[in-house]
Structure formats: C-alpha cells, structure tokens
C-alpha cells in the first residue's frame, strides 16, 4: 500500500509538479584532461531515492563531490532548494542540509562510536567557546539534549554494543553503519550515500536496505544512492541515472533503465538482473 502511494508521488515528480530539492545543470568536470563529468543534468525530487549506477570510473563519485562541494565543476550550476550553491564551500552546504557518506569509510578513527555520531550534531549546537569551557549550565544542558538524539540514532542502527568502542577497532560493516549514523545526526534534508553496502555480508546489506527504506518512509528523507549491487538498486530506488564515461546514458524508473539498450551495452558482460 505504501508502495502504491509512493507510485503516485512518482507520477507527480515526473510531471515536475514537485520542485526538485536538488538540481544539477549541465555539469562538466575534468582533471588535467580526464573528463570525469561531461554535461550531466540531475534532478532529485524531495521524496525519492535517486540512484546513480555505472561501471567503475564512470564519474558517479565525482557527481557527489560536485554536489557536496569537494569539486567545483568547470561548467554548470548546482541548485539546492532553489538556491545556487555552486560556489559554496563544503561546510556551508552541510549547514544547508546536505549530508553524505563515503565510498571508502571516512570516520574519525581515534574517537568512539558515540563521539563520531556526536560530531554530526556539532552544527546543530550553539554553545560558544566560553560556555563550553565553563560547561556547567547551558553547554551541559545542550550536550545532554543532543546526546539523547544521538542515542536514538544508535538505537535505530542497532549498534548499542559498540557505543564506547573506538571505531578503528570495529568490523567493516559496523563502521559503515556508524558512518550512516553520523550523517543522520546532522538532520540532513538530503542524504547522499556512496556505496553504503559495498563489501558487506548479505545480512548487513539487508539491514542497511531496511534503514534506507525506513528513512524514506518514516522520515521522508530524499536520498542519492550509488551502489553496485543491482538487486539492491532496483529494489530501493525510485529513479535511476546510469552513467558511463562521464555521461548520462539513461535515466528513468528501474524497469525503464533495465530495458534500455544503451545500458545493456555499457554493462556488457555484466548481466543486468531483472
């Protein structure tokens, strides 16, 4: 039933009745002659999981890096909630509500799981240097308030047992969960996941898929998802963009994309699962 309701929402986005939360227009990015992105347009609706797939080196991560501000495309614009963010540094975009995880885990290895996720709250806390140094009073109350939110995230991701462990000592799959938790702690308006399930066991993948769906259906959190596991992508995503050699070669619903002859050609040798 929920699926049907979402199907309706999808029709609306296709008719562009809903303003996209994120729009990338005509993005071009090259590194010393390597054209990582060549004229890509992206639209992410405020209620969808938008997938990006493509072979290795297709430029998927580069698109994310343009969106969150690590790379500045040589041409094109990026609009987030109606505002041109093309020139903004990454930390400003984070304040606007863009959160992401990394293909190669980028946690803070020396800190505990709790502190890693707490750092996501730093932008939502207000205490200044003096209040923090005194601690008693406002800073402590704020810290407790945010600790509660972080504990909810820890519960949600079922990693209570790891709360006080240094993340460097944890298994890979758990680190991936912590990274999701850290991004969630920012209360993002758009969540970008770069291969959140890469290298995970089947069980861990199933957990991660469950979290992603719950975030979408309960929190109504729009997401961009890069993933190589086609089964996962086809199940989770509302719309998919396929990239190859820095270009968009197809876009549409999972079913449409799977039927597209260009996509099948790009994936030659790799059967696109139905």
């Amino acid at each position, binding site marked *: 039933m929920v699926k049907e309701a979402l199907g309706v929402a999808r029709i609306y986005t296709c008719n562009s009745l809903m303003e996209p939360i994120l729009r990338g227009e005509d993005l071009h990015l090259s590194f010393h002659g390597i054209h990582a992105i060549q004229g890509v347009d992206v639209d992410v609706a405020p209620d969808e999981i938008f997938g990006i797939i493509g072979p290795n080196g297709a430029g998927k991560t580069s698109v994310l890096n343009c969106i969150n501000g690590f790379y500045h495309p040589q041409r094109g614009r990026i609009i987030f909630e109606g505002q041109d963010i093309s020139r903004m540094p990454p930390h400003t975009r984070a304040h606007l509500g863009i959160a992401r995880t990394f293909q190669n885990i*980028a946690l803070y290895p020396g800190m505990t799981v709790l502190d890693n996720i707490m*750092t996501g709250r*730093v932008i939502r806390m207000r205490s200044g240097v003096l209040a923090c140094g005194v601690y008693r009073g406002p800073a402590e109350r704020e810290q407790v308030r945010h600790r509660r939110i972080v504990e909810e995230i820890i519960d949600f991701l079922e990693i209570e047992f790891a709360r006080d462990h240094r993340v460097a000592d944890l298994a890979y799959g758990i680190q991936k969960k912590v990274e999701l938790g850290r991004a969630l702690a920012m209360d993002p308006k758009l969540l970008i996941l770069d291969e959140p399930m890469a290298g995970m066991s089947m069980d861990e993948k199933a957990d991660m898929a469950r979290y992603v769906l719950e975030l979408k259906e309960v929190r109504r959190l729009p997401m961009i998802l890069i993933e190589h596991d086609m089964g996962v992508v086809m199940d989770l995503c509302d719309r998919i963009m396929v990239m190859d050699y820095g270009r968009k070669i197809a876009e549409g619903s999972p079913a449409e994309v799977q039927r597209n002859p260009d996509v099948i050609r790009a994936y030659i040798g790799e059967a696109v699962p139905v």
Partner: protein
Amino acid sequence: MAVRPAGDFKITYPQDMALLDTAFNRWGFLLLVGALVLAPAWLGNYIFLLTTIGVFAIGATGLALLTGFTGQISLGHAAFMAIGAYASALLTGGWGLPFLLSLPLAGIIAFLFGAAVALPSLRIKGLYLAIATLAFQFLTEYTIIHAAGQGLGAISVRAPRIGPWVMRSEVQFYYVLLAVWLASGIFAANLVRSRIGLALMAVRDRDYAAQVMGINLLYYKALAFGLSAFYAGIAGSLWAHYNRVITIEHFTLVTSIDYVAMIVMGGLTSVWGPHLGAAFVTALSQGLRIIAPLVITVLPAFAKIATPLREIVFGSILIALLIWEPGGLATLLRKLKRYVDLWPFSY
C-alpha cells in the same frame, strides 16, 4: 555488613559525561588539590619546583589542545609564551595596568597572534606546518631581541599586585598560580568534552569528513592555534611576573621542544597528559642538573656524555614511549590503576 556496588553505574547522561566519572577519580582529584594547597608547608624552598611545573603545565595544556586534540604540530609554542610574557611586562610596567588585567590581556594578545599564524595551516600540513611555526619562533626571537635594543631582550617586570596588595613571597605567588592552573586545566578539560572538542578532534582525525559535517576547517584551526597561544600567553605572563626579569633565553626553541616533549611524554590525547608531562620534564631536568656534576666527579670517563645528559635522557625516554606506550604517562597510569584494581588477577 556493608555492600559495595560492583561498579559505578551511570544512570543519567550528565553522570556518564562527567569529567570525574568514578568515586575513585573524584576522591583522587580532591586529594590532589588538597596536596597542592598544602604543598608550601612541606616543600619549603622547593616550592619553586611546583611553581615551574604549574606554569609549564598551563602552557603545555595549550599545546595539547593544538597538537593532541586538533592534530596540528607547532614548534613555536615558546614564541607565544614570549609574546604573553613581554606583553604583560609592558602592560604592567609601561601602562601601569594591574596584574589581574594584564594576565588575561597577555593571553588575548597571544591568541590573536596564534590565530594569525593559523592562516597558512589550511594549505600546509604536517612537517611543513612544523617548519612554518619554527620560522615564527625565530622571527619572534629576532624581533624581541631587536626591539628591546639591549642584550637578549632583557627586561625587568613588576611584582604582581592585586589592588593595593603586592605579592612579594614565593608562596603568595604560588597560590595565585595554583588558582589559574586549576581554572585553566578544568576549562581545557571541559572544552575537550564539549562541541568544540568534538569539532577539533574531527579536524584531527579526518579533515575532509569534518568539512562534510559542516565544520569550517579554517575557523577551527584558527581557534585551536588561538587557544593554544592563549594558554602559552597566560603561562608567559605568569613566568614573567614570577621571574621578575625576563630575557629571550626563557623562550627559545629549546623551550618549544620541551613543550612538545611534555605533551608527548604526558599523553597526547589525555587532559591529564600536559600536567603529568610538565611535572615529569621539570622534575627530570632538575634531577639531571644535580646528577650531571656528580657523574663528572664520580665517573670522569663519562664526562663527555654528562654535558648533553639532558638531551640523551629525554631522547631515550621519548623514543621508548613512542615505541612501547604512545599514550604516554596518562595511559601508563590508567593501566597501572587497572592492574592494582584487578590484582591478583590478570583480567
């Protein structure tokens, strides 16, 4: 029959986030403060040792915030101490400001210099940053020597006064220092566990991930440099008013390197580290100063190593710690406490 609970149970978040989170730690801290308050009674003339430790513990706390918690290396920490010392000497001497005002002002002036030095830290990292701070160290030494116009930047400093009360004795000075020492140590420990500390550690552990979490690298690096310089400035001001005559010799590269030794030996990522390190380095320096002449008289054959004895001993300890206990003295103590707690069992 008294029943001891089988551990410390934390029921609320404030309890879990407390600085001194177990009864052992709370009582230990009270005992320590009590001992420091009573120290002048049984240390007598040796109170100067504790004063020295206190001053350098304050300075080292600043460097720990910068290097231990933010991951930025500095070989110019003594330069900020010099800036605080000379600023305070001029403010109280030339301008006649009271010590209680010149002390924080010295910190604030050093803070501004620190924040300015941080500007290149956005582009240069690691060893290159160390070299940049080294350049700042030499530049400061050079400027002070030339500005003072006379030998080695010697300048006399007024006895600290609070209102009409002039501090003349070592013990009086010690108590003022102790208050500043405690306050600055607690302030730093609070910073570390609050949102500021989280941001600094995020910058240390992975700067690009910190950016994605909305942490402005330039702001937090400048803040870390500024805070560390503030602590050095406070230490410098105290050191100036304690010594009553300062020269640049007090604040050379050797002092900067001593600071690095203190925080590494004490434990880079512990709020206790700089205090333990300052105590250890100060005690060791004084001890070696006594031992070195003895070595020469008793074992003339070893006279050659007696002169650089300090460097040899410090170097060996640093290397040994880096190999066997990178957590420094703070971690060693924690392990010792665990060992004693669990004795005679091994786990």
